[in-house]
């Protein structure tokens, strides 16, 4: 429900007023990136240098200090994103790609070829790219779901016969070395 904000100068979305010259505009951008980068860094840094063309930002800290970013704007933004994705009931997309085999479509997910048959995979199964791991029924068509990479199934996230959306996690996967 963030649509349709009326009126004027939102200080949150206008952190860099007066960007008149190109260099100043660049600086605004560099600064924004610096703040965002700081928020994204897991550990607080000692030195930070960002440069884009003629604009640059350099910061040095004495101590790594407390990891929490103090900027409230930033916190609000980050929280907004979290809320949004949690509203959609999904973990962040970046994690998804790494840790899960996800649904390629919308429909009903089945673990096995037919009722009573053995599941394609289960916890402990080692899967290879292209290996069938389930079926999605969409408009009465049975669409095979295949693993897109190598790994070992460590959790069955979506039960047999459950509805799934696009990109929903089906199985959690542990990467398998060599």
């Amino acid at each position, binding site marked *: *429900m963030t649509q349709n904000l009326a009126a004027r100068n939102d200080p949150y*979305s206008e952190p860099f007023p007066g960007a008149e010259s190109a260099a100043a505009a660049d600086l605004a951008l560099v600064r924004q990136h610096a703040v965002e980068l700081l928020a994204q860094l897991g550990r607080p840094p000692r030195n930070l240098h960002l440069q884009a063309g003629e604009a640059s930002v350099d910061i040095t800290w004495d101590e790594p200090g407390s990891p929490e970013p103090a900027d409230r704007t930033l916190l609000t933004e980050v929280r907004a*994103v979290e809320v*949004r994705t949690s509203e959609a009931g*999904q973990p962040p997309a970046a994690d998804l790609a790494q840790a899960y085999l996800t649904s390629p*479509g*919308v429909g009903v997910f089945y673990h096995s070829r037919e009722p009573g048959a053995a599941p394609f995979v289960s916890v402990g199964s080692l899967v290879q790219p292209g290996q069938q791991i389930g079926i999605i029924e969409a*408009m009465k068509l049975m669409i095979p779901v295949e693993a897109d990479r190598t790994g070992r199934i460590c959790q069955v996230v979506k039960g047999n016969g459950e509805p799934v959306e696009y990109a*929903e996690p089906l199985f959690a996967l542990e990467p398998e070395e060599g």
Partner: protein
Amino acid sequence: MSDVPMFRKVLIANRGEIALRMARACRELGIRTVAVYSTEDRDSAVVSYADEAVHIGPGPAKRSYLSIPAIIEAARLTGADAIHPGYGFLSENPDFAEVCQQEGIVFIGPPAEVIAALGDKCAARRLMAEAGLPILPGSHGPVRSAEEALETARRIGYPVIVKAAAGGGGRGMRVVYQDGELVSTVNNLYGEAQTLFGDARLYVERYVASTRHIEVQILCDSYGNGVHLGVRDCSVQRRHQKLLEESPAPRLSQSVIDRMGAASVAGARAIGYVGAGTFEFLVDGTDDFFFMEANCRIQVEHPVTEMVTGIDLGQEQLRIAAGGRLGIEQADVVNRGAAIECRINVEDPDRGFAPAPGRIEIFEVPSGPFVRVDTHGYPGYRMPAIYDPLLAKIITWAPDRDQAIARMQRALTEFRATGPGIRTTAGFLLGVLDSAEFRSGTHDTGLVGRLLDEPAAAGGTPVAGGTAVAGGTAVAGGTTVAGGGSTPATAAIQRAPAPLGS
């Protein structure tokens, strides 16, 4: 509207401002809503606005907003009893309408057969001629050969336009000025039409250079009742892209409006039309008008009609689809004052209207008396590059056109959308409002070209089509639809301005 059972839950198979607009209509009627979204749109306004939201696919529309299985499954999984298709995407796809019916889900729009018939320009022309609508002189159906085209052209007189029956929105069309060009043009176009649309049929019509694009809004229920809600003038276009629409059409007499309206309702009844629809006409500066095509969807520019009639077209679509009877007769439709809509696209008018999407940092929309804004934008919204550039529609109403223009000038100056890379058409539209030609209401579809001093889009250029409201490139190459993808074909080539000086 009389009391009828209303839908319990409606899935909105679209994105952007129209998805939000329909979610609002549903909420006002007490209907629960399901939004569907692509990965690209996961942070979109309608996803949080709707009661439920289903992730239906990745960004490319072919795998999300144009994927019939994904949308049907989303409706089944959420238990939606109807689907509103919005505009663009699947809104005029008869296959989709048919699948909905098979699945026991109400498609909010006309029956599949009607969509199919009106999607075939050649068939639509014939059907509407039979229903008594004036059409431009031309071939009686497809021309089977270059020779037949030649006969037709000589009969109706040059210039003529050769069009693919399955074309639309400026694609598959050529203007021909003399015998010598015609045979080769027709033969080339057969191949092109086959390639583009999988349908080689062509027909020939008289070409009119200076024209206005006037359309009639109709509403029909499933009991044979129909009314028209007056006209919209959509002549402010750049290369078949509508930029600004208004109602009523300036300098069009009430008697012409009444005749166009009555003809449209007659045509709609003849074909068994149900729901909200638009009949497009070419008006050539006299009081004559010619049927061009009919659109089977809610239009981007529907708000101007809502503002002058007080009738909520989104709600009416829902009521009619739920089996409601039209609660109004023609005499109840009173058009009051004048309304204008400006489309704010994220495009750079200084760079040939190149797409200029990105993250919108500051987003301020006008408000106050008689100003309406339909937008899915918000501060922080990242406008995707892969969909339609429409960010907001600003609509103003006033007792007369001059005041509506003044109010729109006020509203546009209040609008602000800034961010890295973001440019909008707001400033350009202020220029249109300022032009003497527009203010006097004497403009035709050549206005924007003249203001930009751009070479007008000539007949042969395959320009991205019509309102191109949804999907842009994503729409092209969609699923099997009469008309070649679901691109709405609101602007036929006749409305393209003639080359300057011709």
